[in-house]
């Protein structure tokens, strides 16, 4: 059977290729995987894990990290430096023999991928700093009416190192084709995420929810690949066609398909 029996263009990526691509993205666009408050960005040595970036990132003055707000301490105008890092990312397409999923996620379903992530969180706890000095004395006059004044940004507490912990995170998900501005994109999505061995369970659930939102709303949308790009680069000289995903049928039951340790895409060309 030919690759293109049911389509005009067929493309398949082995999971090893996909993992190699993820490695290149991590090294060339580290700010997609590393988030930190300004004090950490200014002093990357504070990070839980040092970032292995491509030398061109520095040559082009590209950021290692995406800036996030420090973690404000409730009831104060102070905050603690914060860093969140995705330090490892590996994907395993169905049937999924490369990643041992935790029992909570069960057996990898057909047309799904398993993902193993390393995630480190660091908090700038000023343990060596006499924070008592920062406590304001009691006020001898009542506060003025501050209504209408811009809020003062919280002041990060000084810190010499971050308190870090790293988690093994597992996820299952798939890849779909979605249209944006009339153009088809290959778009990964997550079904479920699981952190192993955190107690109590409620804390685990909170952390899972937080990381799931970070991945779904932050990282994954930035990994969409315009379907017209990679596989169709070979027909870029052909200007009289538009790219359409091959419709689902008995011959092409899944598009894209995740099977045989590969991600497969089936594409039709329509003459315009």
């Amino acid at each position, binding site marked *: 059977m030919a690759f293109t029996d049911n389509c005009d263009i067929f493309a398949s990526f082995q999971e090893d290729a996909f993992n190699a691509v993820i490695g290149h993205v991590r090294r060339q*666009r580290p700010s997609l995987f590393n988030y930190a408050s300004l004090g950490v960005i200014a002093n990357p040595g504070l990070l839980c894990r040092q970032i292995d970036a491509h030398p061109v990132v520095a040559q082009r003055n590209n950021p290692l990290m995406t800036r996030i707000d420090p973690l404000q301490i409730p009831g104060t105008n102070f905050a603690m430096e914060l860093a969140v890092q995705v330090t490892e990312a590996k994907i395993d397409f169905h049937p999924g023999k490369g990643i041992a999923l935790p029992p909570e996620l069960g057996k990898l379903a057909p047309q799904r991928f398993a993902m193993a992530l390393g995630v480190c969180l660091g908090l700038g706890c000023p343990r060596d700093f006499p924070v008592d000095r920062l406590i304001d004395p009691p006020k001898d006059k009542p506060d003025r009416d501050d209504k209408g004044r811009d809020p003062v940004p919280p002041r990060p507490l000084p810190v010499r190192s971050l308190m870090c912990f790293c988690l093994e995170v597992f996820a299952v998900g798939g890849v779909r084709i979605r249209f944006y501005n009339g153009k088809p994109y290959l778009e990964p999505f997550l079904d479920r995420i699981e952190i192993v061995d955190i107690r109590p369970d409620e804390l685990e659930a909170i952390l899972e929810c937080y990381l799931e939102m970070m991945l779904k709303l932050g990282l994954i949308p*930035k990994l969409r690949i315009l379907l017209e790009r*990679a596989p169709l680069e070979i027909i870029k000289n052909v200007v009289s066609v538009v790219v359409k995903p091959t419709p689902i049928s008995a011959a092409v039951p899944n598009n894209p398909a995740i099977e045989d340790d590969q991600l497969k895409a089936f594409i039709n060309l329509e003459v315009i």
Partner: protein
Amino acid sequence: MANLTIAASEASFVRLFNAIRDNFTFADADSADFGPFTASYDVAFHLENGNVDLRGDNTVKIDELDIKWDKLDLSLGIDIPSICIGGWCIIPTPFGCALRLPKICIFDDDPDIAITLPLGGLVSEVSLTGRLVMRHFDNPARPPGMNAWDAQDAVPSLASEWRLFFDDPIVDIDPIDVGDTVGDLLEAAVNAAVDNLLFFLPGWARDIVKGILGPVIDLVRAILDIPDDIQEWISDLLNVSFGLLDIIAQYIIDYFGDITPLTAIEDPYPLLPGTTNPNNFGPSMLMPVKIPIRKLNVFNNDVEMILEADIG
């Protein structure tokens, strides 16, 4: 197994071929001195149609590819032996001639007449057979040590590419067949050229010259050493004497085999384009993410073309 496999159906490959076929143009001009006459050509053509066949032996054959001659002008410069009339003595005396008729000489130049045969509008056919090959192109203008991002940003781009070509295709071109009306074309052009040359003569002198020349086309045939078949003679002049057939064949080989890739893929390949910097410091745009492509191979069977690559 390769990291990445991309297959294009035969119909997709045909579209790929048609795109570069439609960008093909050929134009050339040359001249040569063949002793009694000079000749030059000024030609231009483009390609149309063609049947593309992916074959099971890992070759591709394209036949019935039409060469549409947009211009096929053949010019001939002919040197006619000088003819002088007049100068005869009308009042002879014992001491010599007292009065002579004026003497007029024509065909003193070389060439005396230049004619152009517009042979355009013809259609020839060409076929080519070859294997597909991916070649890595390193831009020779790229300074040593320039990284892939700076190379991509350069104007014009200095990026490296994988390029898809026909590998040294075998080209078979039908000889240029000028058609059986060329004899009439030549005769009309010669007569017009001679009339134009003699325009300054009075009618009686023109008649004398033409009487001396006899049928002009016969004279021209004799000068050019044209055998009975003018059509074959002109075809040979273009195909063999000028070697136009070989020039065109070599141009087609170079075009499809070396100059114009069926497609080109930048290496490293910019998988994720440059995007806005999420921070309010540093450059406004982040650099693209580029994926190095290694061992890119191409082959075909009778239904599709297949590219296999590894990610570096």
